[in-house]
């Protein structure tokens, strides 16, 4: 049997297995922490930063992302402080410059009081959660879709030669995409590189 660790999340005493992340421990205890780039079958990316929580050490506090930080004995975690909520609101507003109408973002915006139209709209509605890229690589081991370029110019891109062979019978990444950008990118590569019936 693996070692048990006791910690406090939002005032609730939670028992978790050593090595678990704070996010896993919270969700197992029925405490919800929002995420966009997390998937239980995938290595944590730590990219969306939405699952940020406060660690309270009494005389000082620290903010970490709960999808990466592992549980420690006696840890005191607060998932909804004023600052945590402010950070989440900010992250959502930045992402909604890309995808103001994505249902998942919309629900979170309501929860955190984020203004979906705070920033000017951008043409691309990809939010770079990387779920499609990582799922294809880590679970399917096909590497059909990857990231190209860096920073604000970074975008997902299908490799047509592999996509033509692999995608039509799989499409397991489609439901993972929070904004449907992936589907759009797929339709584009399909129509340009391997039209149906050819």
């Amino acid at each position, binding site marked *: 049997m693996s070692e048990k660790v006791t910690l406090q999340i939002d005032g609730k005493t939670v028992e978790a297995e050593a090595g678990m992340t704070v996010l896993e421990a919270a969700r197992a205890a029925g405490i919800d922490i929002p995420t966009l780039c997390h998937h239980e079958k995938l290595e*944590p*990316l*730590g*990219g*969306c*930063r*939405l699952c*940020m929580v406060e660690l309270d050490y009494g005389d000082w506090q620290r*903010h*970490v*992302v709960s999808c*990466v*930080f*592992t549980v420690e004995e006696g840890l005191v975690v607060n998932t909804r402080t004023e*600052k945590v909520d*402010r*950070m989440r609101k*900010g*992250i959502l507003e*930045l*992402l909604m*410059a890309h995808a103001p109408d994505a249902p998942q973002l919309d629900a979170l915006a309501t929860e955190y009081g984020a203004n979906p139209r705070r*920033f*000017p709209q951008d043409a691309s509605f990809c*939010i*770079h959660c990387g779920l499609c890229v990582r799922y294809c690589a880590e679970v399917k081991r096909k590497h059909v879709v990857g*990231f190209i370029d*860096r*920073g*604000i*110019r*970074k975008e997902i891109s299908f490799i047509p030669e592999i996509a033509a062979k692999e995608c039509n019978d799989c499409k397991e990444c489609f439901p993972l995409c929070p904004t449907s950008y992936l589907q759009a990118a797929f339709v584009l590569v399909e129509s340009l590189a391997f039209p149906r019936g050819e």
Partner: protein
Amino acid sequence: MPLLKTPAELETFRSELAARRDPETPCISICAGTGCLAYGAAELITAFREELKKQGLDAEVDTRGTGCHGFCERGPVVVIHPGETCYLGVKTDDVPEIVSTTIGEKKIVDRLVYQDPATGESAVREEEIGFYKHQQRHLLANNTRIDSKSIDDYIAIGGYSALCKALTGMSDVEVLEEVKKANLRGRGGGGFPAGRKWEGSRNAPEKTKYVIINADEGDPGAFMDRTLLEGNPHSILEGLIIGGYAIGANQGYIYVRQEYPLAVANFNRALEQAEEFGFLGENILGSGFDFTVDVHKGAGAFVCGESTALMTALEGRVGEPRPKYVRSNIKGLYNRPTVLNNVETWANVPLIINNGADWFTSFGTEGSKGTKIFSLVGKIANTGLVEVPMGITLRDIIFKIGGGIPDGKQFKAVQTGGPSGGCLPENMLDLEVGFDELTEAGSMMGSGGMIVMDEDTCMVDVARYFIHFLTDESCGKCVPCREGLRQIDRILTDITEGRGTEADIATLEELSELAMEASLCALGKSAPNPLLSTLQYFREEYEAHIRDKRCPALSCKELISFHIDPAKCQACLICMRKCPVDAIDGGKNRIHVILQDKCTNCGTCFDVCPKKFSAVVKLSGEPVPEPIPEEERVIVRKKKKKP
């Protein structure tokens, strides 16, 4: 090439070198650092060799291309030994005179020595020049004494004696304790105590450990590490081997940017030489310690200077930081204990081992010991590399060493710490330079970039420039950095182009908090520094841009207009002819007028208007005066009296 198997063999070799080298033999040292090479130092070296041959002196006079001397402003720098006569800005045409006068007749060529622009006094030796006089050069000192391509030169001045001392005279723990006692803090930006980092790795249970040189110096305007790598690569390598010994690593790496071809070449050569001499490989100097080093060239991403991104790139994957909450000295490269230190940090190690921690801590401030190299650039009279003791004031660096602001302009701000550093105003000039002191002031030490700005610099535009740089270099993995910096960049661009709104400053502060608190790595966490420090010290400039659509420094193109003062214009036609868009109306004896609807604010007229007229002025936040009526534009000149 000798293989030196024991400390005794190293010392014998060193004394043989000394016996062969007569310090009285004249030697012409020519700076062959990147700056001086760009000025034509390579041609200069050839010219000296040919001239010596021509004058029949080639057998008795040595020539040597050395590492960077630091005084890049006045390159190429030539120093003639013995006597250390220093000539600045030397051209190939000067070579025959130098050889016949200084080598032949032992006399000084007066026109090539330094003259203090303020006092007019001449300085013949480097150490008499204001730029050098106030420095304390330990790391850079040897740059000027050795040919960076020659391991003999390095050994002759005591090279590898620290390695020998550490490997054969000290236990690994003693080496570690000495570095800890020296309180050597990381010179790459973070300022983390190197000794504590080393200790963590040493004590980590995993047996295979690594040491790495971070030579991915990417800050705009910074060239400290480059100069050390190019000028004295063995000193860095020696530090690395000692570090490997202290923590129990047998494998070292250097991650060096490929944009530094000379540094890569010189370091590679140093590695080959060190292998031949037995300073790398198995059983180094008979100590039983084995060590090898591999070179990894970076592919041009600024973020790879961040420790975890560097290690990810070294493993052959996309250079993005890791989200882990475990220190890389415990789990770093290939998840093994890894000590990553910057070039300058490693270069300090042999000095500490040779001279002792007490020597190292004898200069500096309470929290920051030793010396620090800064690259002093921007609106400064003496551009170059300076090495100063920690605790020196910014004022001394900028005015005593840097010679102040050129062209009679006023100092406005100094930006320290690279793109993620902050801008400090005039009333902070007496700040003592140290890691904690700079951080408290809202800036940081960073790796040692120091950009001086004068009254013509717009601080909003400076913030925009650095944020734009960081937006471009963000890896894009986390939202606060990728998306947050993009919005900050957009808002700052709007402000500098006259589209700022009252709400902007609050939005900028909010986005800065998000980036600092929620970003994945240090790039995003420190990125808002240039914005926040300029907001702290120059807030009124932001407000002027937003409220009055005025750029107080008369620098933001969209917020200024050019105007020709009719009372000063002498109708000389120069600006009219140079204007690239024909936006100047005028003619011979007709006062020139800028056609505002055609003008693109390029500033050419301002630049070419003769200083004695200074008729072209920049205006911001005020309407351009109406052009004077056509009939008043004619200039009637008095006829020159015949003599």
